[in-house]
């Protein structure tokens, strides 16, 4: 369904800070996949998601979605098919707009925006229904400005806004990392719920290895701009954190050995 073909991306090319963010990444995402990605800082995980979302254009390689080459499609056009939740809870919502107005904006992703009213009474009922899925009581605060919500509430709202229009792909970029453990669990269980309920194809970056193992049907480990390890659903079932660490260390050693020998 989503294919990345030999994606290559360099930042600050030709300068001292030159950094190869992605070094020939191939990825074939099947319909209904739930992929978790782990890797150390600077491994290229976020860059990968940004390339799928169109925020960053690859230097080389192609991005295909359902047999359509969208490598050069601008971000806002791709966004029709892609739902995103960012790491920062402030990023996914507009603070000076109310909860229902934010949902109306999310609704506008798949419907052409017109000069019709953004929040009609029919839509308000729909929004209420969706908000009640969060179980946070936000359905009773439709006219509250989103800037007044807590980080956890905002992130849960971002998640709902990214998913309820049923995007073809859902991209989650460490979306629980900025929350306290209790809130992170709430958002994570909502994530699971929405992915199942809306049957979303998902790619999730996480720093939490247990989450990476527990969730999804595929696990990728990235390092230095490459996918260095992949586990399928069956392999994942047997994975534990120590084994994952071993795997990482093995490849880490191999890489440094190669650096030493070359």
């Amino acid at each position, binding site marked *: 369904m989503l294919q990345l073909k030999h994606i290559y991306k360099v930042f600050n090319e030709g300068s001292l800070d030159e950094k190869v963010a992605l070094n020939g990444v191939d990825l074939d995402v099947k319909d209904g996949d739930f992929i978790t990605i782990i890797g150390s800082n600077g491994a290229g995980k976020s860059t990968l998601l940004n390339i799928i*979302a169109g925020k960053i254009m690859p230097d080389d390689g192609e991005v295909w979605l359902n047999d359509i080459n969208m490598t050069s499609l601008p971000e*806002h056009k791709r*966004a029709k098919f892609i739902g995103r939740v960012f790491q920062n809870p402030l990023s996914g919502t*507009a603070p000076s707009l109310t909860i229902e107005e934010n949902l*109306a*904006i999310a609704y506008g992703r798949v419907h052409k*925006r017109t*000069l019709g009213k953004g*929040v009609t009474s029919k839509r308000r009922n729909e929004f209420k229904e969706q908000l009640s899925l969060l179980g946070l009581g936000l359905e009773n605060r439709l006219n509250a400005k989103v800037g007044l919500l807590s980080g956890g509430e905002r992130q849960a709202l971002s998640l709902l806004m990214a998913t309820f229009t049923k995007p073809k792909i859902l991209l989650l970029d460490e979306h629980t990392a900025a929350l306290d453990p209790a809130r992170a669990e709430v958002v994570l269980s909502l994530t699971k719920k929405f992915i199942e309920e809306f049957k979303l194809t998902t790619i999730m970056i996480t720093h939490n290895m247990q989450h990476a193992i527990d969730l999804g049907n595929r696990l990728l480990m990235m390092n230095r701009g490459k996918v260095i390890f992949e586990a399928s659903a069956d392999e994942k079932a047997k994975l534990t954190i120590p084994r994952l660490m071993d795997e990482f260390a093995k490849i880490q050693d191999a890489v440094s050995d190669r650096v030493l020998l070359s």
Partner: protein
Amino acid sequence: MLTAVYGSLESGLIYAIMALGVYLSFRILDFPDLTVDGSFVTGAAVAAVLITGGMHPITATVIAFFAGFLAGAVTGLLHTKGKINPLLSGILMMIALYSINLRIMGKSNVPLLQQETLFSKLADAWATLDQIMLSVISPSPKTWSVIFSMLLLVIVIKIILDYFLKTEIGLALRAVGDNEEMIKSFSANTDTLKVLGLGLSNAFVALSGALIAQYNGFSDIGMGIGMIVIGLASVIIGEAVVGSKTIVRATLAVIIGAILYRLIVAFALRFNFFETGDLKLITACIVVLSLTIPRYFEKYREKKRKSARKRWDQIASTKTHL
């Protein structure tokens, strides 16, 4: 004295349209747009030239509105397609418009004193209305025609603007100034929205310029100097007095701010100490004060709130110790 208040009300209502334009760019789009100084004159120039050319004042005013839209849209294109910094795109457009406005007018001042303007037509209509009503009420002052017609126009514009900002496109526009990253991820073309927003903003400014030219009886190349600061002053004063919790309230605040600004200036000029040339300095001082004083009060209130909370916490902790 009363004439000064009348005058402030009249011009305040007309300038309120300009202030609504500045509100659109400055607050909604979060884009400090200096095009205003130029597009205000563009509106005045287009209306003045068309009216002296024999066109109906209403048609001329409408065309001035669209001329302003064009000017704002170009600023938007400079910023979005040319990737020029917002302030600089506005300044560039302002300077360019100076020459364009001179070209439109052909000279630096176009008088309208002998012409049929919107206001002379309104005054005539008002006079006939007065004659019919003579038996009921005593004749009203002539200036009332301006106040009532402009009040009506401003209210209509406010209602349209309030509605527009709640439409799907309007919501997206507001999100652009609020969280650009977010609205992009929801499939909105922020470039188009910015061009649209700036166009609309400057269309209102030009409309206000066209009306001021007809109200004052001339269009002058220098009439737009400092207009952005006057617009900002109106927005900030209004928000300080009326508040800006909802869109409906915020646009009302801008209108009231524009009228208050005119009243403040009228009162300031009544002191013999001030000369008309001091107007810009007074304006600058008003903006500085209305930007700094609320912040000072906010800080003071915060401090008070925190110390109250601290005391509460102390009480609470001593209680738990007991």
